[in-house]
Each structure stands twice: as C-alpha cells, then as structure tokens.
C-alpha cells in the first residue's frame, strides 16, 4: 500500500518535472524542473532497492550534471533566446511522430502486459550482502573490462570538454 502511494507520488514528480522541463521558456526554470524529475527517478531507485544508484543519482546527477548545466546557462547569454520563439518549425511533424510511437507503445502495453509475471520465479539475492557490496562485486569481477573502458571514455570526455571550452581552438 505504502509502496503504491510512493510509486505514484514519485511518478508524478518524474512526469511533472519532465513536462515542465520541456515547456518552460526560461532555461533556469527548466533546469530546476529537471532536478525535480531526477529526484523523482532517485526515489524510484530507492523503491526498487537500488540504494547505490539512488546515491549516485543524487550526488552525480543533481549535484554534478545539474550544477554544470546551471554554470553553462550563466556563461551563455540566454536572455535573447528566452524572448524568442521557443519551438521550431517542424513541431507538428515531431508531435505526430511521437504520437505514433506512443500509440505503438500503448498497444504493446495493452497486449503484452500479461506476460510480465516474472518476479516470482527468480531466485533472490543471498541475504546479508548489501546492494552496494553486491554491485561492487559484479562491477569489479564480471564487468571489469567495461568498467575500465568507461573510465577511458570519461578521460576522453574530460579532455574533449576542456579543449572545446578553450578560448582559441
């Protein structure tokens, strides 16, 4: 019961924040709405017993990426953009395409939602190990190579963004 109430309130946060993000005229307001949406996603992680990802979501997304966004919004002068037209010329086509995808997804959920009863058959994790511990185990054993590749990707991103932000390229 509590789970249901929490799910629907977090879902309202996620969707409300998302809708506000893509409709606000002022980019700072969009960023704040995006923070609300990301916090809702973090709550959903907690509901799904992904405690480590909950912490990562708050520290990294809300604390890191959103601060980066706000910095860039201040560096870039958005006053003219806020007064200008907000939606581009092909928004009708875009909305039609999205509506088509939404209809497909709705049909899929309507037809296929009965086949998702999978939770009962699966084996539970061994008791006593926390989420973070189990995640670290699988990250550093089974997924070690992707982990190292991800670190290289981050290095490339750091170098790339520094070069992009330089005065003279």
């Amino acid at each position: 019961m509590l789970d249901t109430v929490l799910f629907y309130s977090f879902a309202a946060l996620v969707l409300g924040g998302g809708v506000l993000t893509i409709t606000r005229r002022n980019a700072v307001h969009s960023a704040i709405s995006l923070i609300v949406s990301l916090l809702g996603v973090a709550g959903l992680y907690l509901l799904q017993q992904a405690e480590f990802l909950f912490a990562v979501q708050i520290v990294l997304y809300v604390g890191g990426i959103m601060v980066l966004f706000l910095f860039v919004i201040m560096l870039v002068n958005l006053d003219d953009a806020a007064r200008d037209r907000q939606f581009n010329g092909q928004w009708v086509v875009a909305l039609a395409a999205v509506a088509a995808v939404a209809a497909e997804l709705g049909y899929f959920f309507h037809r296929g939602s009965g086949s998702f009863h999978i939770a009962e058959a699966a084996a539970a994790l061994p008791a006593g190990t926390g989420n973070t511990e189990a995640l670290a185990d699988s990250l550093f054993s089974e997924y070690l190579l992707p982990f190292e590749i991800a670190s290289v990707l981050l290095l490339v991103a750091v170098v790339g963004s520094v070069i992009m932000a330089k005065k003279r390229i």
Partner: protein
Amino acid sequence: MHPVTTVHYLALSAALLLIGTIGVLTRRNIVIILMSIELILNAVNINLIAFSHAWHNLGGQVFAIFVITDAVAEAAVGLGILIALFRNKETVQADEIDLLKW
C-alpha cells in the same frame, strides 16, 4: 488500487522517454535539448532498474551505472561544444546553426 508491478515502471519509463523525445524534436534552445537527452537516459535507467528488480539480477544496475557514465560524458562534451558554439555564432538556437545546410 492495483499493486505496483514491473509494467507500471515500464509505462512510466515509456512516458518519460516520449516527453524527452518531444523536447529533443521541438525545442530550439540547445541547453533544453541537452536536458531532454538527460530525461531520455533517465527513462532508460528506470527500465533497467525495473528489470533488475524483477529478475533479482544486478546486471541491470551495472548497466545503469554505465548509462549514467555515458550521460556525464555526453553532458560535459555537449556543454563544451555549446560554449564554443556560442563564442563563435552568438546563438543557442538549434535552427540558426545551419552552416552545413545547403
């Protein structure tokens, strides 16, 4: 009230994905387009976590970590490109940046 199942999470994730897609396709401001991409990546993460929970398999959570890594790299590089672009073109509207348009 029905109990919350994996399908609820999938439906929420699909809705968030559609919202993000609308943002990417219709907005002119590049900063908000980048934010919409973050929304899409979060929709993917909700999906991964829902299946990870349903199957009691941690692979989904590991993949969500990699998706978050990608989102960080994308945001950093994208915002760097945006700053370089603004310095040269004095605009953040996506449809005014049409150097490659014939």
